[in-house]
């Protein structure tokens, strides 16, 4: 196999693509609703999947995986904070 295809960023790209298709299938194509998920659950699911994809971009495209831990944790914490805030706003407001 081409060495480029074996690299971590390629695996992350394929995973991010797959998660994109899954979230589209669940949310935009309404399959989650047909499976009984509420609007709140779909919103939370979409944001969690987005958060996972963004973490893949941060770690393996932007190379934060090998960055100083303070820098890496700052971005991961901010990402988690935004995702949680957006989910809580939907639930509590």
């Amino acid at each position, binding site marked *: 196999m081409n060495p480029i295809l074996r690299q971590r960023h390629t695996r992350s790209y394929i995973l991010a693509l797959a998660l994109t298709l899954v979230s589209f299938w669940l949310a935009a194509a309404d399959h989650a609703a047909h499976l009984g998920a509420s609007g709140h659950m779909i919103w939370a699911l979409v944001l969690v999947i987005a958060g996972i994809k963004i973490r893949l971009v941060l770690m393996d*495209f932007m190379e934060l995986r*090998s960055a100083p831990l303070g820098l890496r944790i700052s971005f991961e914490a901010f990402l988690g904070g*935004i995702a949680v805030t957006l989910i809580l*706003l939907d639930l*509590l*407001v």
Partner: protein
Amino acid sequence: MTAIDTDVRVRGEMGRVRSVPAEAGIWVFVALDVLIFGWMFVLYAYQRAEHPVVFHAASDVITPAFGLIYTVLLLTSSWFIVTAIGSLRRHEHQVAERCINLGIGFGAAFAVLKVVEYSIKFAHGYLPVTNQFLMFYFVLTFVHFLHASGGLIALGFVRNQIRRSAENGQLPRQNVQLVEAAGIFWHMVDLLWIFLFALFYLGK
């Protein structure tokens, strides 16, 4: 490319070696930019939660398939950019040039399709002043579009440096850092889009 950092990144032997990708300045810029976008996302989510019926009805004008195509285009573009810069580090200039061209191509396709989508909405009378949902949608996606446009210009610089490296060998250290910083900026465009896709195309 640069001394120890790039050498260990090329060999993949990071081990205990941790270095700031590119240079600190681009990370300050990225941090400020995602802070601003993050705040706008929170504002949008708050308004959406306050007026769920209005926002849900207003969001029917959004076509999720557009969002899916944009996401695939930008993720693929980012992959090509990572591969291009990685190839440049290993002095694999032909691969680097092919990948940067494809990365720019996919990014340009995103921008062109965005203009097409805007045109369709305007033709149907959907404007930023039509309702609050569309105001958020147009403002956030347009600001992102401006970032993407600037990112394409930065990728043009990367392409230029790849060609220069192929002709002259070693790039000056500052140019190396600028190439890597341009890559990081482009990936930031990608990650911001992932949230925009979720908020406006999926989470409506």
